């Protein structure tokens, strides 16, 4: 069999992504049809930049979702004779997909399949870690901005302390096997992962404390589900044994949340300081609403615009951070197909075979670019109100 030409590689790759194209087409058709009823999300489809960004982001989300269908080979299996082979080289041995579409890496694994499987790690960790960072930042930032005073001074000092820490140094100190041995990351996880539960509990309680039955239902569901996930994720002690997080993913997750939350804290604090002076806050205070009700149900919804935009940008930044960790070989295991680690392995052989590093590098760049464009589109549309 001959090697594929560049044209047929492109055709074959586009063909492999068929579930993604269908899913994208359905999403866009539905969203554009109903865009007037979808609020800010619908308005996104008025801005070409936002639409392009959203398409790139959703492309990777769907790729992660359908990774098993798209990938041509197993991301870890090595096929002899395929080491550092150029894109489009035919696979002669075995009963598998007959080509390495993007070539083979230095361990004779399929670069294309690794890229596709790697998207799964990035697309799950980055948004969830960002969400956790937002929970921490919001739970601490709102009272700091609303109450001010000594609480604000102490929390701001702590936030600035973490911000003054060079990120890479922090990663090098936190993400080492010795540090895992001491259990420090697990304790950090134990503290950081409490915040979402605390956040939700306060959220329900402050709104529904006048309707005790409803509140109790909400609180019970939050505490049971939250506690279950918490035990599984933070302590690896899920009584049912379903939820667990490998130790090395946990440490990466924790350090990314830790680095991101002070910035979110500062943004939320600034917004709370500003919104606090509005009339509707004064009205709520006169009505005799509790401070947490005002913070979570008056201030927070009115701060959503900048927060949503920052959320998109921050997912991109988290993706870059995850890549940085992989680039220094920290955290995730070396054979993991995530993009940062793959770039790290490929970069040493750039002069012989650039494709193993280039493919994940361009994937990472496109995802972050998509998130940035999406954030830009959202900002433009939310400013039009």
């Amino acid at each position: 069999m001959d090697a594929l030409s560049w044209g047929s590689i492109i055709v074959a790759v586009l063909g492999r992504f068929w579930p993604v194209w269908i899913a994208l087409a359905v999403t866009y058709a539905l969203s554009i049809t109903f865009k007037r009823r979808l609020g800010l999300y619908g308005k996104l489809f008025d801005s070409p930049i936002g639409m392009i960004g959203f398409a790139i982001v959703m492309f990777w989300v769907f790729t992660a979702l359908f990774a098993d269908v798209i990938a041509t080979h197993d991301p870890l299996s090595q096929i002899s004779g395929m080491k550092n082979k150029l894109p489009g080289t035919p696979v002669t041995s075995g009963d598998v997909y007959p080509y390495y579409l993007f070539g083979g890496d230095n361990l004779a694994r399929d670069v294309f399949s690794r890229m596709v499987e790697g998207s799964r790690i990035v697309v799950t960790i980055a948004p969830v870690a960002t969400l956790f960072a937002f929970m921490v930042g919001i739970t601490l930032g709102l009272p700091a901005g609303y109450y001010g005073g000594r609480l604000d001074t102490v929390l701001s000092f702590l936030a600035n302390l973490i911000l003054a820490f060079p990120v890479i140094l922090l990663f090098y100190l936190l993400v080492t096997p010795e540090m895992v041995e001491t259990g420090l990351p697990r304790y950090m996880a134990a503290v950081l992962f409490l915040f979402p539960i605390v956040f939700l509990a306060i959220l329900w309680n402050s709104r529904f404390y006048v309707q005790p039955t409803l509140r109790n239902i909400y609180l019970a569901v939050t505490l049971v589900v939250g506690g279950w996930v918490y035990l599984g994720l933070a302590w690896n002690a899920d009584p049912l044994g379903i939820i667990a997080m490998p130790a090395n993913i946990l440490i990466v997750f924790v350090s990314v949340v830790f680095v991101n939350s002070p910035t979110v804290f500062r943004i939320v604090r600034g917004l709370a300081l500003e919104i606090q002076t509005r009339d509707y806050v004064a009205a709520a205070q006169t009505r005799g609403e509790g401070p947490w009700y005002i913070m979570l149900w008056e201030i927070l919804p009115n701060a959503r615009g900048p927060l949503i935009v920052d959320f998109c940008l921050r997912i991109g930044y988290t993706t870059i951070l995850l890549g940085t960790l992989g680039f220094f070989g920290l955290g995730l295991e070396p054979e993991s197909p995530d993009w940062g680690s793959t770039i790290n392995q490929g970069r040493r052989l750039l002069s012989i075979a650039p494709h193993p590093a280039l493919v994940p590098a361009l994937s990472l760049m496109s995802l972050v670019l998509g998130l940035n464009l999406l954030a830009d589109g959202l900002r433009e549309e939310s400013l039009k109100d």
Partner: protein
Amino acid sequence: MFGFLLRRFGTMVLTALCLTFVVFYLTNLPPNLEKIAKTEAGSRISDAEVQSWLEKNGYAQPILVRYGEWLGVIPGWTRTEDGVTTGRCIARGQDPAEAATRCGVIQGYWGFSNVFKEPVSEIIGKRLGLTGWLMLFVMLLMVPSALIIGVVAGMREGSRLDRSLSTFSIASTATPEYVSGVVFITLFATPMLGMNWFKGTATSAADDITFWNFFLPVLTIALYGMGYIARMTRASMTEVMTAQYIRTARLKGVSFRNIVLKHALRNALIAPFTVIMLQFAWLLNGVVIVETLFNYKGFGWTLVQAAGNNDIELLLGCSVVAVFVVLVTQLISDIGYVYLNPRIRIG
């Protein structure tokens, strides 16, 4: 102004103390100390031997005491065994009576690197010099081009030029150093496309900087930071261009060129100044990545080596420098902001 400076300085010292303590604590956790004992005294020693080695070398004291010794506010440890006195401040073969009682960062003693077998202060001084050159060229490339892009994009908001420049800046912020570095090396330093004009490593630049071995690392760092500064400049420029006095100048019939250069530019550059100063801290990340990628043996490379080999004293030295750079640039950006913007007065 003086009170503000004093308060700012106080916070800075407190921050530096907290941060160095955190680094000290993290590098001195028991598993790390055990690793040091094993690299120094042999990897097959038993737990009891590890313990006695740690005691002999002053590692077994409470962490706060050791932090004090490292800072130089508590007298260094001494130990007399078989009539021979050893201690933190006593060099090998030195008479214990002559040695100083305190030796720490305050006295200018930064410790000794286990990996490079040189005093930490010498290593850091040498490596910082190399990184200084890198930073200098990055700034020379990044700041003017970012400002030009931002001003040109912001002076006619919504034009086609603005759109394309903005897209360029978004793309550059979305391309981390390890991506652009890999792409640049592939394109310009490998024979694949026949454009191997540059060198893929910058190791030789340590002795002799040339355009061919230094341009790629500089470009890689500059590109990532450029987009952000350009976007900030654009935002501030568009804001200034809609201000009342610009409209007045237009109505008076001042040429567009003069409006931009004489009226708008000065006020539009206040916000980017802060951003550029704060960028230094961010550049540190880029420096570490790029120095690793291009094998340029500067400060970032040293940091990675120290962290990877658990070289405690060198790592502490590096973090002191890093924290210092971050805090000083924050201070400069605050003060500069007050000077540039007469509307802000801090009492």
